[in-house]
């Protein structure tokens, strides 16, 4: 059965260079620099990426950064907590819009 997202398609990511090699190279250089050890460790960056991957719901990124987190030394508990951070921010982001609802409610209500 065919799916919109196929895990092996991640291997074709480099084909994005075909349409614009220059932009692809710039993206790669920037991407590599972002994930290099800096003020944050590579492990911390991989955990952030894993959380963001869940927030943006990118299956390719989830696969890639699950592996990356393990290879940077994170364990299942740490990775699960990172996903909960993403989920909490998504849930909290919905809930905090309740303030908008309440503002408008009060404006309309007697």
């Amino acid at each position, binding site marked *: 059965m065919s799916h919109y997202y196929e895990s092996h398609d991640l291997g074709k990511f480099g084909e994005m260079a075909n349409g614009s090699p220059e932009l692809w190279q710039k993206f790669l250089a920037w991407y590599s620099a972002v994930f290099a050890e800096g003020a944050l460790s590579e*492990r911390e960056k991989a955990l952030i990426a894993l959380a963001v991957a869940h927030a943006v719901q990118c299956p390719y990124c989830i696969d890639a950064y699950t*592996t990356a987190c*393990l*290879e*940077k*030394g994170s*364990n*299942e508990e740490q990775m699960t907590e990172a996903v909960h951070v993403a989920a909490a921010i998504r849930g909290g982001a919905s809930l905090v819009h309740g303030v908008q609802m309440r503002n408008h409610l009060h404006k309309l209500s007697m």
Partner: protein
Amino acid sequence: MAEPTLNKLRVPLADPKVQLRQLHALAIERSFEAQVAGAGHPELRADGIQVLQINVGKRCNQVCHHCHVDAGPDRREVMSAETVDHCLRVLAQTDIPTLDITGGAPELHPEFRRMVREARALGRQVMDRCNLTILLLPNYSDLPEFLAENQVEVIASLPYYLPKQTDAQRGEGVFDGSIEALRRLNDLGYGVPGSGLKLDLVTNPVGAFLPAKQSQLEAEWRRELARRHGVTFNSLYTITNMPISRFLEFLLRSGNLETYMQKLVQAFNPAAVNGLMCRTTLSVGWDGTLYDCDFNQMLELTVDHGGPRHIRDFQIAPLARRQIVTAPHCFGCTAGAGSSCGGALAD
């Protein structure tokens, strides 16, 4: 009751030829030999023999899920006393500085203590690749004292500082036993600064991924083992899982074989080639057959470039400059930071 080995189950994958067929059937863009040539080694050759690594047999009290030996309690392969004598004679007639004893659980071998004593009497460094839980078995409870008296370097397997991951790889209850054994070793001075008794730990990833950076994990293991269990050690070695035997069976069963091999190939690190352990190690099988490393031994890839093939026919000159026998599994030793029995090669 321990799980049966692949050998006991008589599954086709227990046969090294079937394993090699699986590895050679994979689509690999550039062969290991071509990659190594590109790294400045047109032929991968030995550069002396610094370590005589003897695999005394496949018997073990554990059945670890990643074991490239397919070792376990149901294995019967054991090195004969005559072959042990050949190994000790080679040590006596050469200046090979290190004897590395592995298995299975090498301490189960009836000649283990004789090997240790005689090698130490020759002034050689002796390493014992220890699964830790062996030290708790009733007939082996004096082993820590024996190892300490003979100043044997203990290389102990401990994949993680938490029970869940350790038991997932090595079997239920192994973590608790391992910590108890480590405490006994610490009590004798092993892993304690200034004692002269060296205790190194080995971690293999608990799954189909590469090990994290060795220096980073070592700092973390040191902190967590001390904090949680009061355990100390000298060094931590990261070792990449090899697509051989039980780990190969896991890769096939879990649908990870292609992606794992692809990862090993894509992570080829030319900087790891120079320090590959096969270049300075000679591996001896339980029946005396010679190999370039313990992984080649399990795939039954004997030394095959002009040197003698059995320890009784040992000659240092051809073996010290022999060409190394390679196959796709060798990418496991060159991936990322590289991997060897002494840990990462380019951390």
